[in-house]
């Protein structure tokens, strides 16, 4: 043992300590600088009076560059860590931002709604379950539960039923693509747009005047009395649901049709050779084969029916007994400013959607998509 050995060892400890310190310093320094740059960009965008062009350019660089920088810095930081830790952290560098955004825009608002649903109109006083009692006892609320059930049964049944029927028939005719495109087209129309279109179908003028509504024009052509379709209690819901079916049949058809193509023709052939009728083949071979697709499509449309709002809002506004849960929520929230009741109704809707959503997702992952 010589003194030089000890000295070099000492220097080694010192050096490695310095290196660790330096690494730590850099690890802290880099994120701080990155954050500083982002913050400066934010402040500039918020307060600057520069010309719009300059601000737009800075915004682009800040937005795109900021995302890239955030990713690069986090990735770099994670790679500083020991391999075993880095391996565990790495996935979060990729999904982290998505999770954070989801939490901020979805989870936090949901929790806030839950919190607000226990308070009064102005969110000042705790009212226990009053808002939920309202949600399950108010006459208009009960009306909207019944109507929503109607939307689910008739809307989903109609869209999936017609979708299946058309998919089966289109499979057997020439010009399949043309028919399918025509049926699919309404999918490109927004719900509000569809509402505007269908207002003209259902428009009503008193007897003796020119009927600008398609349906009443047909009725009067055959000598009937013009009808005010929207005011016919019970039936008016059906008239509204027709619009949803019109919009969603195309979606159901396209996906069911894709599943139909996956049914092995050898089995169908075998069925035919065994002398099964076409109906029997559909019932016993095709339907079981595409059952999981049918479930996925149905649950998707059930969710759409549960949160249906736009059609009711543009056509009847919930009048004449057509109220649905979502329109009640809108009214409580934005017309009556009763945040408690609005939030409680929103929570009821969330709770109603969750099981369907869960089932839908489970089907999804089982089938690995469509």
């Amino acid at each position: 043992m010589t003194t030089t050995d000890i000295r070099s060892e000492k220097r080694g400890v010192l050096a490695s300590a310095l290196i660790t310190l330096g690494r730590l310093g850099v690890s802290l320094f880099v994120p701080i600088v990155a954050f500083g740059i982002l913050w400066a960009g934010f402040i500039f965008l918020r307060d600057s009076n520069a010309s719009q062009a300059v601000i737009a350019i800075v915004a682009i660089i800040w937005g795109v560059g900021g995302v890239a920088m955030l990713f690069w810095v986090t990735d770099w930081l994670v790679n500083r860590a020991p391999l075993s830790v880095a391996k565990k952290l790495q996935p979060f560098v990729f999904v982290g931002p998505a999770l954070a955004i989801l939490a901020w825009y979805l989870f936090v608002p949901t929790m806030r709604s839950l919190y607000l649903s226990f308070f009064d109109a102005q969110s000042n006083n705790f009212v226990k379950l009053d808002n939920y009692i309202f949600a399950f006892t108010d006459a208009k609320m009960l009306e909207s539960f019944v109507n929503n059930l109607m939307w689910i049964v008739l809307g989903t049944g109609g869209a999936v039923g017609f979708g299946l029927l058309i998919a089966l028939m289109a499979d057997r005719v020439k010009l399949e693509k043309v028919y399918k495109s025509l049926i699919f087209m309404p999918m490109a129309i927004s719900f509000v747009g569809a509402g505007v279109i269908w207002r003209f179908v259902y428009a009503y003028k008193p007897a003796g005047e020119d009927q600008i509504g398609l349906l009443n024009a047909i009725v009067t052509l055959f000598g009937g009395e013009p009808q005010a379709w929207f005011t016919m209690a019970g039936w008016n819901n059906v008239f509204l649901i027709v619009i949803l079916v019109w919009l969603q049949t195309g979606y159901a058809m396209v996906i069911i049709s894709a599943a139909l193509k996956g049914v092995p023709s050898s089995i169908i052939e075998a069925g035919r050779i065994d002398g099964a009728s076409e109906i029997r083949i559909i019932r016993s071979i095709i339907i079981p084969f595409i059952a999981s697709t049918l479930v996925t499509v149905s649950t998707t449309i059930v969710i759409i029916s549960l949160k249906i709002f736009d059609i009711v809002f543009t056509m009847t506004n919930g009048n004449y007994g057509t109220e649905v849960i979502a329109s009640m929520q809108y009214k409580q929230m934005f017309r009556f400013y009763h945040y408690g009741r609005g939030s409680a109704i929103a929570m009821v809707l969330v709770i109603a959607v969750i099981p369907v959503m869960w089932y839908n997702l489970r089907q999804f992952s089982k089938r690995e998509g469509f």
Partner: protein
Amino acid sequence: MKKVVLVLLMVLLILPAAFAGGQADKPDTGKKTVNVFGAFVDEEQRRFEEAIKPFEERTGIDVIYEGSKDFETLISVRVEGGNPPDIAGLPQPGLMTNFASQGKLVPMWDSLLETVNTNYAPVWKDLGSYNGVPYGVFHRVNAKSFVWYPKKAWAREGYEVPTTWDEMIALMDKMVANGHTPWSIGIEAGGATGWVGTDWVEDVMLRIAGPEVYDKWVNHEIPFNAPEVKEAFEIIGKIWLNPKYVYGGTNTILTQSYTDSPRTMFDNPPKSWMHRQGNFVTTFLSEDVQNNLEEELGVFPLPGIDDEFGIPVLGGGDQFVVFNDRPEVREFMEFLATWESGELWAKAGGAIFPYLNQDLSAYENDIERSLAEALVNAKVFRFDASDLMPGQVGAGSFWTGIVDWVNGKPLNTMLNDVERSWPK
């Protein structure tokens, strides 16, 4: 790599659009600006901007008006989000009390209060007050207790303006005997369907029960299903629910939009002969009629029923309230409280003003002049009750109650439902 470049390019294309929207609102530096947010748009917005030009020229202050049809939703969002306009024109007093109770509004300062006291009847200051503290300044207002008729057709048939309710019923029967349908009524108004009906109920309430009972009804000191209210509905029901009296019967009342319904008076021959609506009805009429308004359109106040209460006037209006206290904002508010701010709009037409010291000769036509006169001279003026009631009722169960009642729901059931919906 190509894909990455493509995605980046798309981001580049989309981002400026997203940011440009936010930047447009930014005021230029150097010039003093006042941001006003209100519910009126299009032509009304243009006339408002025209009317405040003298102020901008005199003071050099730039007043930026922004109007939205979704005003009532947006103003709450903006105030909640900590981004209120300097001044907002609130169409419903309920919004004012809402914001005032949250401490968001700047109360009237002494000099403004003085101007308001001299220029307005006391009822307007009360309508703009919360807990005795005045906040709101009224500008353009509307008066609703009027019946409109096609002048030329009436002259041809020899119909005369009724001065009492009984005379009006007699006239209606005469019209029916002549094969005419007296009334055109349409209550369809999208999200606000039913409000036309609430105006009728309020007008009749004022006529049979008087302003004091009316105020009690508004403040829920008498229940919504009180006998007076029921009586008012029954009086209206005698007209509304009788298919001989109303063009198209109840189905047309429900489905005809309130903007379309006055037009049937000007068909040839007229499909209807009378229409009850506020002063703003003129904007719904066809261009032909609008161009010859004074020859084509006649108007009389909805007759009184009980002599004790005379001919009350029902109305409403936007009140301007202050969110941000700055000298230029104060200056503009004081301008709004003077007749000068309304004069140019009165000349352009389509508005009446409540100022006591206004120059009636400024109004563009005789019709608006006579309405403004009726408004300033009315012994009883009351604000639209549905705008004063809590939103649950005034913009909710009262509206839907009217719709349900016209659609066949028994009167008692409907009144009890509305009463039950009144927030505790």
